């Protein structure tokens, strides 16, 4: 679903901040743009034309989509759905996540997403089996 169709959720966010303290990303950084509250503010600003897509990209990928925010949200807002819609648009605009691009490269090169040397991984497997 395009981001615009989630506009009502973005508008329903009252910026109360009840979602902050259980957000695993916000807890690490104390950066408002990492919380669901901050994400809704910056997406609102984006849709109003006050921010550009490339400015918001990094913050949209800093989300585990764990739904902790939804669980504590005053209105039970489905924030991860909005974040995923924003990511879909970012990909379409060529602003896809650098992390997933790296995962693809790793798969092509090492046949595993972690970029680990296949020989080393096999040795670990042998050790575990022994």
């Amino acid at each position, binding site marked *: 679903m395009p981001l615009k169709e989630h*506009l*009502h959720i973005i*508008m*329903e*966010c*009252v*910026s*109360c*901040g*009840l979602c*902050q*303290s*259980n957000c695993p990303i916000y807890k690490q950084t*104390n*950066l*408002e*743009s990492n*919380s669901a*509250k*901050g*994400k809704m*503010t*910056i997406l*609102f*600003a984006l849709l109003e034309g*006050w*921010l550009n897509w490339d*400015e*918001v990209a*990094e*913050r949209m990928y800093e989300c585990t989509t764990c739904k902790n925010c939804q669980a*504590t949200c*005053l*209105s*039970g*807002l489905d924030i991860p759905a909005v974040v995923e819609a924003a990511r879909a648009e970012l990909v379409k605009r060529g602003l896809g996540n650098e992390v997933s691009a790296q995962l693809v490269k790793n798969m092509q090169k090492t046949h595993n997403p972690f970029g680990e040397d296949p020989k080393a991984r096999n040795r670990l497997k042998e050790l575990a089996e022994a």
Partner: protein
Amino acid sequence: MSDTIEQLRQIVGENNVITAKVDRVAYSRDLTPYFSIPDAVVYPTTTEQVVEILILLNEKGVPVTPRGGGASFQGSSLAVRGGILLDLSRMNKILEISNEDMIAIVQPGVRYETFEHELERRGLTFPHDVGSHNAATIGGILASDSNGHHAYKHGRVGAWIQGMEVVLVDGTILRLGTRAPRYNMGYNLAALFAGSEGTLGIITEATLKLVPRMPVEATIGAFFQNLDGLMNASLAITMSGIDAGTFEATDGKTVKTISDVMNLGFPTCEGNFVGDVQGFDEENLQRKLMVMERILKEHGGENVVIARDEETTNKLWAPRLEIDTAIVKVHPGYREFGFAAADPCVPLSKQAEAIREIGRIIRSHGIIAAVFCHAGIGIIHPAVLIDARNREHWVAMKKAEQEILEYVVGIGGVVTAEHGFGYVKNPYVRMAIGQDKLELDRRIKKLLDPNGILNPGKMALDTEERDSDVGFIYKEYVTDEEMAE
């Protein structure tokens, strides 16, 4: 400004200064309709850094707005004049909890919820559980002199400050009080800084009084066909001597909306009552519940339910807590806004009348109202729920706001008793406190912050306007100037 930002980086370190627009935008709004982007967000981690920051910004005349969790309802922690947003959330250590002295020493950025978890493990509590408990910080709670969920029993937070460290704008570190429980030494400055909304100094540490956590608790709910019966019941419980924790009342129309949307099967009523009560053991609790149940029924309470399990407790609290969830289901895109009539207080004998009249005023303007009351302490919380894309709704909200405040003052009440003036109440401060007190407040401000850099634009200390120096989230917003035309 770029010079200043560079100097701030030297004080707090590269990672504790934020200038990227996307990150500053995230700090630009709260529950009010306003939008105001700070020039930089700075996170001090020590008192010494706060001292250096204030000396620098005072010298340069740069506005500095303190912020804890940013959960203020009233634009209090928005950087309405730009400048530096001083985010205290990284000063978040609990320095000490002492069971012997019954105190805790904390930094300002500690979240209420985190603090309570730590206290709970030691059988203690700091019973000022604001509704924003997992967002609000101790610094924000003290600077707003907040009124927690159990304010009926425990009063405002200000009286629980045993000691405080405050940094003044010239860099002076003021230490007020000690770990000794009482002091009476000249003017009570801790009381002045509590509720000063960051306009007089930065709270960098607090020594807080604690009490034992009561081991057993119950919630009790009832429905009333008549709000007068509900208020008389709460007064009778008070007069019985029972030390209940809280009494809350919700108007019947709101109860119906929530019941319908959430399928809760509540009876029709003019008002819902929900309260909680604690005991030092089960027998003590049961005796209190027995008396409360009897009093509620004697005053017309119907469907009286006592809850001990989580599911029933949540159901009893639904009329008070679930309005936002219910409204977005019935009216997608609608939301609540922080407005100037969010927290007036009326004499106890006028509570029922005020709930009715305030609900009537809001609804008469064609917008959705939900009216709550902290029964027993007179605080009324009217919530207006509007479609922010509809200009008429903004006009209605502003008209309702003025009528409510005039009505409240007319019946002997006050304009604000919980959230403080912040930014959104600037035009009502003079009416609320009168010329003499406003002048005295401004002289106190001038004495402590001669250059007016600390949280400027708030509490009518330097302007009685609110729509002049900020942007608005919605272009449909109707300014005070447009209202006057």
